[in-house]
């Protein structure tokens, strides 16, 4: 299950998609839109994807994780407007044991954020809408905390 959708994400469906009687561990990551309370409070994020290539990249990333960790992976990302507190991305990964499940899940969300041609625009309470500066290919570090910087990241 790999998709871009303009309707709410269904974590239970993702978990169901990776269910496997041989897999004893399943990890679920859900990225949600942050409010960033204050004068520049975010009211929604608007996601735009280069859909053909984004789907191809998500399929490639999922296949890499499945191969590297003997996992099953499902991933979905929203497009269009996503309100504060709503999930914008969800990744489920199951594997024989929990280390591989966590690692596969982490791999998919990190690679998605670095590689998938998807962009977000932060719409703020003062009515302004600004595109969030992205990461160039090769910029990303797997160890950087999500909370650094002032960007309105979901995920």
């Amino acid at each position: 299950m790999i998709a871009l959708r303009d309707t709410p994400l269904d974590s239970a469906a993702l978990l169901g998609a990776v269910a496997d009687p041989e897999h004893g561990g399943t990890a679920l990551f859900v990225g949600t839109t942050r409010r960033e309370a204050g004068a520049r409070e975010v009211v929604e994020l608007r996601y735009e994807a280069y859909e053909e290539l984004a789907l191809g990249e998500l399929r490639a990333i999922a296949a890499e994780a499945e191969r590297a960790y003997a996992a099953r992976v499902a991933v979905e990302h929203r497009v269009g407007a996503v309100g504060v507190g709503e999930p914008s991305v969800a990744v489920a990964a199951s594997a024989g044991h929990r280390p591989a499940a966590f690692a596969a899940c982490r791999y998919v969300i990190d690679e998605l954020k670095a590689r998938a041609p998807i962009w977000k625009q932060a719409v703020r309470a003062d009515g302004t809408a600004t595109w969030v500066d992205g990461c160039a290919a090769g910029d990303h570090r797997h160890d950087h905390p999500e909370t650094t910087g002032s960007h309105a990241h979901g995920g």
Partner: protein
Amino acid sequence: MPDDIAVTVRLFASLRDAAGAGRIALRLPAATPVGAVWSHLPEGVRVLGLPDGLRYAVNHEWSVPGAPLRDGDEVALVLPVSGG
């Protein structure tokens, strides 16, 4: 010009906003390299300056600036990404 080719350029996010459209049709000299598409875009886009970290895709697959374009190709200008 018999040697011209028809190319569609796909734009996203701030580039799409600047162009006022997500698709632009161009006629270019045959074998124009992918990386030269920028200089053929409308003034309203070029005024932004060539974005740092811009990448290219041709017909929905990653490409490189030096790849020659063919008639009917679709080129996407892919800004640094910010999904998640």
